[in-house]
């Protein structure tokens, strides 16, 4: 691994990212929040300076090795998160909390350590939402789309960051693929913003929610999340766009080009619809005593199922108060996640589908020891390497989950809090149960727990193996030469 390449590329990313501070700066100025405005200005200038220093005077990159690609993506995410944390520091959060909130934003987790929402200005809440929007489709993917000089290197970076095991390219050039996905993403965001305005939600809140729904993020400027607005129409709009955010954006892109049938032929999408349908029905049954009227039952159930499954993390009701059966449904959904190639986190439906088929095949193999039983998806055989990758991913996923749970509970949290806090951060969902419930804050956890959970969000967003590969000694061996 060449450190110069690492420094130059991540530096360039940081330099470009510093431009993003202009948006919250504008909002802060608009609302006359001068301290915050200065904070954004300072954060922007500092990021730009650091980025420029890293990228300065080095010859342009010609090709990036595999390890370098993974390292660039892993490091860029930390660096950008640190940069994005600066405004929180200015606004009064401690370093650990600022990093937690920033990572929670960029990884579209939506877990928050902010207790008192009145202590912060509009600019900061807009920044919180904006970081989620950048993280939703992937910061690196955005850079790949807009930075022409990344060239071939963009390919490595794009796939190191891409959610899900299937590397589908919409166009032969990776730059155009990234551009197309971002265009669809941005277009849908605008559409949702308009739809939310139409339901009577204020302009600022509509913008924030549109930015965090499509990203499957879950930050809300309201302390009680979506429940705080008491606006059923807005809940329906958000439900619909969460569903869109949880599906593969490659399918949206193809649908926009007239290939509507792509949805029907996609096995993962069909599984997605089935999981949503069954879960909503289960919730409706379990919550029949709490919710009055069929319409409300459907609305509340569908909202919460999609919010958890797509790892958005909004709450239209305080599900901490729900009965155990209903909570169990939500907990199960936390381990599934959205579709590959979507804005959602979690282990992804396609992986669960593949693991289920692999397991069934093994059962069948005990009956027919000599049978040739390939795992198929969409009528095509899943190559052995990908299948192995999926299994290893899931094993590591559970391992990281277990370690995180262990740490959080050892540091004083109750078991359900520890379990849900870990899966909610690792899966980039946001809220959990008990002490980290939808109306609570992660600030009550032990500081070390918050550091561990911050790392879990990072590892979970980059799908574990990207980070693990960089941590492996082999990746550093070359460095010593």
């Amino acid at each position, binding site marked *: 691994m060449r450190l110069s390449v690492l420094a130059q590329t991540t530096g360039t990313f940081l330099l470009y990212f510093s431009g993003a501070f202009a948006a919250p700066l504008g909002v802060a100025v608009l609302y006359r929040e001068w301290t915050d405005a200065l904070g954004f200005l300072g954060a922007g200038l500092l990021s730009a300076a650091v980025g420029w220093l890293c990228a300065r005077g080095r010859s342009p990159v010609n090709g990036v090795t595999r390890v370098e690609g993974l390292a660039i993506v892993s490091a860029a995410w930390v660096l950008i998160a640190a940069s994005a944390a600066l405004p929180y520091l200015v606004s009064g959060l401690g370093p650990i909390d600022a990093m937690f909130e920033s990572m929670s934003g960029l990884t579209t987790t939506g877990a928050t350590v902010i207790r008192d929402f009145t202590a912060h200005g509009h600019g900061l809440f807009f920044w919180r939402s904006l970081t989620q929007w950048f993280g939703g489709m992937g910061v690196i993917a955005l850079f790949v789309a807009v930075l022409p000089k990344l060239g071939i290197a963009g390919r490595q970076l794009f796939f190191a960051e891409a959610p899900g095991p299937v590397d589908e390219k919409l166009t032969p050039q990776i730059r155009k693929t990234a551009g197309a996905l971002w265009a669809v993403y941005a277009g849908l965001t605008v559409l949702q913003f308009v739809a939310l305005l139409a339901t009577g939600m204020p302009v600022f809140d509509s913008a924030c929610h549109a930015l965090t729904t499509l990203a499957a993020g879950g930050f809300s400027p309201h302390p009680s999340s979506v429940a705080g607005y008491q606006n059923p129409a807005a809940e329906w709009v958000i439900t619909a766009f969460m569903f869109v955010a949880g599906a593969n954006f490659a399918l949206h892109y193809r649908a926009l080009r007239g290939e509507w049938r792509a949805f029907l032929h996609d096995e993962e999408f069909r599984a997605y619809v089935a999981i949503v349908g069954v879960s909503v029905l289960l919730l409706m049954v379990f919550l029949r005593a709490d919710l009055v009227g069929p319409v409300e039952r459907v609305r509340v159930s569908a909202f919460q199922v999609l919010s958890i499954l797509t790892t958005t993390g909004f709450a239209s009701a305080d599900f901490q108060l729900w009965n155990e059966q209903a909570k169990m449904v939500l907990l199960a959904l936390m381990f599934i996640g959205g579709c590959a190639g979507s804005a959602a986190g979690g282990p992804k439906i396609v992986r669960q589908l593949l693991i289920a088929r692999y397991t069934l095949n093994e059962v069948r193999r005990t009956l027919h020891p000599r*049978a*040739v039983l390939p795992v198929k998806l969409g009528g095509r055989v899943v190559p052995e390497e990908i299948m192995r990758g999926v299994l290893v991913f899931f094993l590591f996923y559970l391992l990281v989950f277990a370690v995180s749970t262990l740490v959080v509970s050892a540091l004083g949290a109750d078991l359900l809090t520890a379990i849900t806090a870990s899966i909610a951060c690792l899966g980039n969902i946001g809220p959990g149960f008990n002490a980290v419930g939808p109306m609570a804050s992660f600030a009550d956890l032990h500081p070390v727990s918050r550091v561990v959970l911050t790392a879990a969000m990072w590892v979970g967003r980059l799908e574990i193996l990207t980070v693990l590969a960089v941590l492996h000694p082999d990746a550093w061996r070359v460095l010593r030469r």
Partner: protein
Amino acid sequence: MRIIIIGGGEIGFALASQLARDHSVSIIDSVVAVGERFDAVDVAFVRGSGTSAEALGRAGVATTDLLIACTGLDEINMVACAVARRLGAARTICFVSREDFAGSDSSAEAVQTHFGIERIIWPEAQLAEEIERIIRSPGAIDAETFAEGRIQLLEFRLPASSRLIGSPLAALRLPPGALIVAVKRSDTIEIPRGDTHLLADDKIFVMGVPIAVAEIAPQVHAGREGRAAQLVTIIGGGDVGYRLAQRLDTGGIDLRVIERDRTRGELLASSLRHALVLHGDGTDLELLESEAIGRSDVLVSVIDNDERNLLASLLGRQLGVARLITRVSRPANLRLFERVGIDVALSARGAAVNALVHEIQGGRARLLAVLEEGQATIVEITVPAGFSPRALMDMKAPAHSIVGAILRGTEVIVPRGADQIRAQDRLLVFAAADAVARVRNYFGSA
């Protein structure tokens, strides 16, 4: 007729030896040793490549009536046809062994036109289709369909327990719409009469509408041999096995394919939806036993090796398989296989060669099927316009032939003696090999 055959392999040799009697045949092959094999046959041997204009010129391509390309390589065959057509060959026939060029879609047709090929023959696919027809006809050892499936012909071998044995044909209660058109006893084919008694080990040919013909099976076989196949095992996932598996893989039949090569097995498993692909050897008794292959209604053995096919089939019989269908590569082995107890022995190349030879010899009558290695055929004859209607029993039809079905517009008649034949009728005639010419002349002159 002047015929050029490119490729002196098994197909080329079989074609040449049958065609050389009546036609002037030239063989083109680049291997000298192949030429020596043709010494016993009255043909001209031209040494050279089938795709070279020079070699084709020496074989007299400019004045040739028919060129048959049957080397082992599809690409060579196609290019040879294209070149020959340019150089003046009147018609070209191309043998292929892969799906690339013989698919049913329009692109394959475009390729065919582009290369100037009149007909593509794909023996393995034909064999797979034939095996499928036999599997789907319970108890039958051969099955053909005609007139878009409205008429079916089945061949059965009568077991000693059959209900059809004992009484004269006239006393048998056969379903209306089905007709026993011929009986083969000790290698001779006879057209049965009302007083004919059927014996055990006779082969009978039944023709008629599919529903009626299907009712014959339980009368031939009392046990499970007469019932529709539910569990089918295919040994060998090569060209034939793969295609057959694809055709049977509709979900209605419990299908198993045993393939020795791991990579090939993976290919099979990837494209078959329902079938269970097993990696192993078809002659591995332990595998056959552990997978309960003996419960199969049909065991199809289509390995590319006669000895192993025979071994696998006989193991299957030992384990209790009801029907055995086996591929034979060397035509000489066909009868041997049937003698040792294989129910149906089929040769891919043999069937293709027979069909082609009959077509070349047959001239104007439309040949629909070749049965019993060329001993009998089904031909279609259109009754001439001037023909005055008369009842079948009043006609003195040529010996060793029988009208099996009359197609009149959309109507299908399985005839009895009193039925009339009219002008413009299409007749499906079962004719022993020696009777084909007479049948044609009979209607030609009438």
